């Protein structure tokens, strides 16, 4: 029986191969629809016999009727969607046009018939070429216009005759036997059965150019149906064991029974999970909404891009601008969303660095950048580079000394005994938080950033200078208005 275990909120994969196959899941859904649609008493389509010229066409329904039913019963508003769904049902051979090999649904008077459950793909059919040969051979024996072979079928037959040259007599006999069996059936019944048989082969030996819907993703083939359930012959020809093995032979993983250690590991893992702090859904939903709102104006699929989207207009100005170090206001605005966004953009990095240099605190960002670079270095360079970073930023008397808390400092110096790409992870995280809470906020308020954001042009007479001049004036005037010597004395000594 299927082995499974309930995992938080879901079912972990079972080992029942028949139900697992992805095609099987789709077949079940289609069969549900097809059963309902044929149930006339429960609101299904009207399946009728249609008079045509001198004969009657039994058991058919028009494509338009099927489309109507799908739209009404599956709540589909768009007819195109109903046609797409109906064509999917046809492509798998559950319905078929009576006068065409191509399995699609048309929203008109084209007549369709339902496939017999015997031929349903969910029965795990894998018909052999011998069967196909018998089928084509049988068709040539029956002298009916409607059973004439199509060009591609004639070609297939010729190829099969060459391939099965040695056992052709056997195939011929089987075909004759089938013809005899068929002749015994009622005329109307035969019409229906012939068409269903043909539709079956249209699925398993599709018209060239049509999709073979029985193809499976090779990654899922390993878990394919139980070999005992596979049906290989439509005409009762015994399997002579010459079937081609699938190109992949992957031995299935034997499922071990969980040991005591496995369960103990699971318990440890579950305990860690339980200790995690869960954030409220309302907060998380808010965060998602805020994020998408912020970035929607930068999302070319949602908002119009300025300048034009190069894919549509064939004008690459947008990309040229992105690559340039002179960012647009819109791009600069993004830097204000988070420190991560600012650092993602090379121009943002440059400007932030420039700002920090003006405050004489650029060592933090330079450290952060150096550690990012370290993580991408080839292994042989990692150790020496890690040492260089230590010398530059953390050693005693380092030229660009950064401010680390003692805990991170201890851990980092420990890590450096065996230097690796991630030796500075703790330190980097600490410095990042520092920048985020301190310098980043000031950067956003700075002239450097604001000028770019508001696209302010730089004045030749620097505003900084202007302010300094007025401060000097103010100080002088204060000094004059107060009793002179005492204050001047103070100012001189400071």
């Amino acid at each position, binding site marked *: 029986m299927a082995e499974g275990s*309930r*995992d*938080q*909120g*879901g*079912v*972990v*994969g079972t080992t029942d191969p028949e139900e*697992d196959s*992805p095609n099987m*899941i*789709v077949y079940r859904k289609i069969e549900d629809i097809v059963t309902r649609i044929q149930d006339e008493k429960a609101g299904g389509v009207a399946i009728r016999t249609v008079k045509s010229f001198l004969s009657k066409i039994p058991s058919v329904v028009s494509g338009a009727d099927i489309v109507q039913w799908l739209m009404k019963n599956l*709540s589909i508003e768009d007819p195109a*969607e109903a046609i*797409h*769904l109906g064509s*999917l049902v046809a492509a798998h051979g559950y319905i078929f046009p009576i006068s065409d090999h191509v399995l699609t649904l048309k929203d008109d008077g084209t007549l369709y018939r339902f496939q017999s459950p015997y031929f349903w793909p969910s029965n795990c059919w894998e018909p052999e070429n011998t069967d196909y040969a018998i089928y084509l051979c049988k068709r040539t024996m029956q002298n009916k216009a409607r059973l004439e072979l199509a060009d591609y079928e004639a070609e297939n037959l010729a190829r099969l005759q060459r391939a099965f040259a040695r056992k052709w007599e056997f195939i011929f006999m089987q075909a004759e036997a089938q013809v005899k069996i068929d002749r015994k059936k009622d005329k109307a019944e035969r019409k229906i059965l012939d068409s269903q048989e043909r539709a079956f082969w249209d699925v398993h030996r599709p018209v060239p150019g049509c*999709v073979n819907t029985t193809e499976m993703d*090779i*990654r899922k083939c390993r878990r394919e149906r139980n070999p005992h359930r596979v049906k290989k012959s439509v005409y009762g020809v015994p399997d002579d064991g010459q079937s081609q093995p699938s190109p992949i032979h*992957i031995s299935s*993983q034997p499922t071990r029974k969980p040991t*005591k250690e496995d*369960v103990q590991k*699971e*318990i440890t*893992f*579950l305990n*860690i*999970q*339980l200790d*995690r702090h*869960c*954030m*409220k*859904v*309302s907060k*998380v*939903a808010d965060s*998602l909404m805020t994020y*998408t709102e*912020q*970035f*929607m104006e*930068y*999302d*070319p*699929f*949602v908002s119009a*891009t300025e300048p034009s989207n*190069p*894919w549509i207009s064939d004008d690459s100005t*947008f*990309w040229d601008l992105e690559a340039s170090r002179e960012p647009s206001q819109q791009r600069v605005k993004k830097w204000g969303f988070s420190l*991560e966004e600012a650092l993602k953009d090379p121009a943002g990095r440059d400007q932030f660095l420039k700002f920090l240099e003006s405050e004489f605190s650029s060592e933090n960002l330079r450290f952060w950048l150096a550690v990012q670079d370290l993580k*991408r*270095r*080839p*292994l042989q360079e990692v150790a020496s580079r890690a040492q260089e970073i230590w010398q530059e930023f953390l050693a005693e008397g380092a030229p660009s000394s950064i401010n680390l808390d003692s805990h991170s400092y201890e851990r980092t110096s420990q890590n450096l005994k065996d230097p690796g*790409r991630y030796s500075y992870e703790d330190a980097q995280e600490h410095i990042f938080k520092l920048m985020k809470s301190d310098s980043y906020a000031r950067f956003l308020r700075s002239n450097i950033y604001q000028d770019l954001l508001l696209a302010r042009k730089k004045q030749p007479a620097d505003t900084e200078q202007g302010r300094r001049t007025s401060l000097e004036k103010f100080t002088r005037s204060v000094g004059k208005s107060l009793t002179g010597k005492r204050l001047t004395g103070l100012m001189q000594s400071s």
Partner: protein
Amino acid sequence: MGEIEELRKEADSLKDQITAARKAVQDTTLQEAVASITVVGRVQMKTRKTLRGHLAKIYAMHWGADAKLCVSASQDGKLIVWDSITTNKVNAIPLKSSWVMTCAYAPSGNLVACGGLDNMCSIYNLKGKDGNVKVMRELAAHTGYLSCCRFLSDSEIITSSGDCTCVLWDIETGTQKTIFAGHQGDCMSLAVSPDFNFFISGACDFTAKLWDIREGQCRQTFGGHESDINAIGFFPNGNAVITGSDDATCKLYDLRADQELITYQDSGIMCGVTSLAPSFSGRLLLAGYDDFNVNIWDALKAERVGVLAGHDNRVSCIGVSADGMACCTGSWDSFLKIWN
């Protein structure tokens, strides 16, 4: 025997407590929270380019970091690097094994990787000295097919495999640095977080797992799907995960709330999801299905807002370029299409 029973009871009790903890923070649902915002307008994208050249099913594609070059892998045994704007083939790399299932482009643009039924991840250097593209490394240790691979840098790559594990490799030495074991079914897909500290994997045991790359441990597990998870991706803010499954649905899980927030499904969609990619802002989710279409979802409202119908067979892979400008789809019909 009794001891295992005791332990199992303990494990089950912990699971119940975790479920309770998750419920405790469910002060609302995503659907309620977004009730006030309007659905995104109908999204209509056109095919701008068709990349022709493969002769068989395309199984995978991946954009380069420059948003113009991309690499694709096909069962015709070729890895092709395309200049997607001119549709020219920059490189056409013949593979030793034609049963390739995945490909990846390094962020630097120097390397590409691929793998499949050969159980190996082969790394190719695109910027070799003499101009020829050669195999640089063959990472062999998996005992199952290679389903997905993603570069962290030119020195490290993460792979997922049909042997139920994911592995972090050091490319230069060709050795496994960390093995991430825990899934009980084939790992089908993986995605790396925007900050490169975590990655997520989706598997045939119907669960998705979040792994800490450095610590080598599974941090969280998400369930809820009723069939194999074929595709997985991070929401652009790095705090949420999107999965696509054979059960014909996609799900959004939040890492901080530790639970599923919403499911993207429609009674008219019956076929499994093969691939997915969020748009630049995350507001749209593009998902490729076995029924040859790509459905575009409003990720917050969980409503379908568009369809890309242009392939004549299954859509096997999809990717949105780094600048969000274009979406590329690859299909079993052997073509890649660029849409926007």
